[in-house]
């Protein structure tokens, strides 16, 4: 199945807004760390509902925010959620970015990077489009150490890349990006029911759910583009 087929269904189901709500718990902390300046141009890779761009415009008044996504329904929805003239949406693929060399100050991506058909190619493209000193904030909930995420692949038709922390660092460096930071960002907002409520649909035990949200949370890897 294609990105369009898989994710257009999500968008029509309202899952774009559902993800926005859930991902915001950690994405807002990721966004808060980005050293954006008012004059910056930022790309949101796999933008979904486009919430990251709206948040960056509000918090930091960035000059332009571009949301790239492969699913037209996602983009149509994202476009309808904002009338900010500094935000624009583009259909494209992670592995063939339609942006000029050195044209962006920062790239943000939440829960999307691992859908790339060729993630090393995507990293190379990110390095290419970033200005020297530009950052790539790559946030994922699906990764090796998060054992609670491993089963997700079963419900998704797109092949997902499951790297561990070290593999993320190595892949960034192989693509010519400096690694400036790696961190687990806890989700302190998702409600965790009392022990008696377990097993639930998602978790065998309360401890497992605490580990998933409060400890493992979102894996953030920050890359920085060198001089070309």
């Amino acid at each position: 199945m294609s990105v369009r087929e898989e994710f257009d269904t999500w968008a029509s189901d309202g899952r774009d807004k559902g993800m926005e709500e859930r991902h915001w718990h950690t994405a807002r902390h990721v966004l808060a760390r980005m050293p954006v300046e008012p004059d910056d141009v930022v790309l949101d890779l796999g933008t979904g509902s486009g919430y990251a761009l709206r948040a960056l415009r509000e918090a930091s008044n960035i000059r332009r925010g571009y949301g790239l996504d492969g699913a037209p329904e996602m983009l149509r929805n994202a476009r309808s959620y904002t009338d900010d003239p500094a935000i624009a949406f583009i259909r494209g693929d992670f592995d063939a970015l339609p942006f000029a060399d050195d044209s962006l100050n920062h790239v943000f991506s939440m829960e999307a990077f691992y859908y790339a058909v060729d993630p090393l190619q995507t990293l190379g493209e990110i390095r290419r489009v970033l200005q020297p000193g530009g950052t790539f904030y790559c946030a994922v909930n699906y990764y090796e150490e998060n054992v609670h995420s491993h089963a997700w692949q079963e419900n998704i038709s797109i092949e997902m890349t499951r790297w561990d922390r070290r593999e993320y660092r190595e892949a960034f460096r192989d693509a010519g990006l400096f690694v400036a930071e790696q961190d687990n960002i806890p989700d302190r907002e998702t409600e965790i029911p009392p022990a008696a409520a377990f097993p639930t649909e998602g978790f065998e035990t309360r401890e497992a759910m605490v580990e998933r949200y409060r400890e493992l949370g979102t894996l953030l890897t920050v890359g920085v583009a060198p001089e070309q």
Partner: protein
Amino acid sequence: MKEDLMDIICCPLDKHDLELEVIRRDEAEILEGRLVCTECGEEYPIEDGIPNLLPPDMRDEAAA
């Protein structure tokens, strides 16, 4: 899409500049049109205000 996007976008294949052909627009932006690569000549549609810059082999003909 707005014209200022032209400053930053390029052909996803060979990364060369694109040329804009407007079919329909309102005061704010281009609603229907085409982006044509100045190097390879590949054409990318603008539909409902959103440029489709997927590589042509990933483009689904069923696209709205």
